[in-house]
């Protein structure tokens, strides 16, 4: 059997597939950040906490109300999205006339509060959330055992990402959104309620994070800190991608998941920092990011 760089090709495919799965989370999260940034010009530091909330709300729905995974998949993004709308209306919207950095500081503070409250309430050991019965088990692909659930994660996030891309790039609503990013006054003149558009956009971006949280709940333990560490990686993903385009953030997310997956095989010790190293290189070569707009 021939080997590629000392790794049997089958194993390599397996690892690439796993990278793609992690990439799904990066893509969903960086997509949400990109959409929010596009219209609000705010880097939503709360994004990680909202991802965590997604997982927790799914857990609560199951344990307090008895709503299973499939219901949660649709309900949770709405519920967490609504909390996002409330935050935007109450707090974030009051900062638009200020420097963007205040938005960053505010959302950072909110992230601390949300994480702290959940930690206080549920401890830090993590809560179990079972894989839904329909998706337990797995497929033997020959080169690896692929749990059905992981396959579902890739499919679900691809579908959601592409649907979002389609709505924003190809529909009238998306056209308004893009126009509002460029020139809110003009769009307002068309009779469109721009503040409401902004609020809903924030809610949608947060909903994407919560969706990622529900997807993650059965894989990782539902844990108050699950968002804190992933958000920094996603920030690096965003810097690399440049948030210039919706498709760009999706591609960067999946791409970096793959790169990270490969690093886990060839140099596991470096897999935690590989994305940051790539970020440094991109900053040197193409400071605006791979898909970033100039200036």
């Amino acid at each position: 059997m021939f080997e590629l760089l000392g790794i049997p090709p089958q194993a390599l495919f397996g690892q690439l597939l796993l990278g793609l799965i992690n990439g799904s989370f990066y893509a969903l999260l960086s997509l949400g950040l990109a959409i929010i940034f596009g219209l609000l010009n705010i880097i939503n530091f709360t994004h990680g906490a909202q991802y965590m909330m997604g997982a927790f709300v799914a857990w609560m729905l199951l344990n307090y109300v008895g709503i299973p995974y499939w219901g949660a998949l649709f309900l949770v993004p709405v519920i967490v999205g609504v909390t996002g709308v409330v935050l935007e209306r109450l707090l974030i919207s009051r900062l638009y006339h200020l420097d963007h950095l205040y938005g960053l500081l505010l959302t950072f503070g909110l992230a601390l509060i949300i994480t702290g409250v959940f930690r206080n309430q549920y401890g830090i050991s993590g809560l179990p959330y079972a894989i839904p019965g329909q998706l337990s088990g797995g497929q033997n692909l020959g080169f690896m055992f692929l749990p059905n659930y992981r396959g579902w994660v890739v499919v679900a996030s691809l579908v959601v990402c592409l649907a979002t891309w389609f709505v924003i790039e190809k529909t009238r609503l998306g056209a308004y959104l893009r126009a509002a990013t460029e020139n809110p006054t003009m769009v307002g003149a068309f009779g469109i309620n721009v503040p409401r558009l902004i609020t809903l956009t924030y809610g949608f971006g947060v909903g994407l994070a919560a969706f990622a949280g529900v997807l993650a709940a059965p894989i990782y333990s539902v844990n108050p800190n699950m968002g804190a560490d992933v958000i920094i990686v996603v920030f690096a993903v965003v810097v690399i991608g440049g948030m210039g385009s919706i498709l760009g953030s999706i591609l960067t997310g999946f791409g970096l998941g793959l790169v990270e997956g490969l690093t886990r095989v060839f140099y596991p010790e470096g897999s935690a920092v590989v994305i940051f190293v790539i970020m440094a290189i991109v900053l040197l070569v193409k400071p605006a990011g791979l898909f970033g707009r100039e200036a």
Partner: protein
Amino acid sequence: MATQTSSLDLSRSAGVEAPGMPALHMWIFAGLLLFGLVAPYILYPVFVMKVLCFALFACAFNLLLGFGGLLSFGHAAYFGSASYVSAHAAKVWGLTPELAILTGTLAAAGLGLAIGSLAIRRQGIYFAMVTLAFAQMVFFFSIQAPFTGGEDGIQSVPRGHLFGLISMAPDRNLYFFVLAVVFIGLLVIYRIIHSPFGQVLKGIRDNEPRMVSLGYRTRRYKLAVFVLSAALAGVAGATKAIVFQLASLTDVYWTMSGEVVLMTLLGGMGTVFGPILGAAVIVTMQNYLATFGDWVTIGQGIIFVVAVMLFREGIVGVLARIIRRPL
């Protein structure tokens, strides 16, 4: 070339300033020094030393944010790496405390140069994210590098003898050394702010494209202030390692970067004295509420939100507005 202005609404209080140190500032510095001299007889000296180290850290950070207009979300990297290097220098190389602190400071400055030269390629929130990401890289390095002792940190760092002569083991002796280091650090920052270089920084903060159009190579100035800020944060971190005889992962973790932002925001960014007060408040809060665990985090989050929503000028900024004098 990116021409986005970083027009943080800083130092609304910083109005007209006469050249040289205004009498008011001189009195405040004198008051601080006097308080510093009597504090160890009233309060627990180790606690006051902690406040001093964080006050210097916050002021170093504020030099970058308040006067350079650059929000770094990764300042723990310089604070923490200086702390590791000085702990290593004192423990393994047996350097005297002042040389250990110097070594730590140089390390922080070098790291600041490396990260800064990459980070200043982006502006505004991107800059914040890039510094945060690099700091995370430093954190991962600190977990794995053999000399940092992983999550045990470097422990039992000897306090040593100042200049090889005066024992730093008694808390009081060490205290006055730390007071001197921090006070000199604060004066250096004050001078930087009020130097020709500082004037250029304020110009860049207020309107960077305009400074470019006047022929200033603004990137070099931003890098210079970044390195200065990293070095001074390094002094604070290195001193802390000697005081607590410990360098640990806490000092390089991103929550530390968040705390220093909070101290500065609470005290008043762009003010001279705000970060000192902010540091004192936050350190006191952490110290006396340590029992309450998560509530400290929640409290810090609430302070963040309240400060951003209601008083962006910070405590000292508000005071300055009331008395209509820059502080």
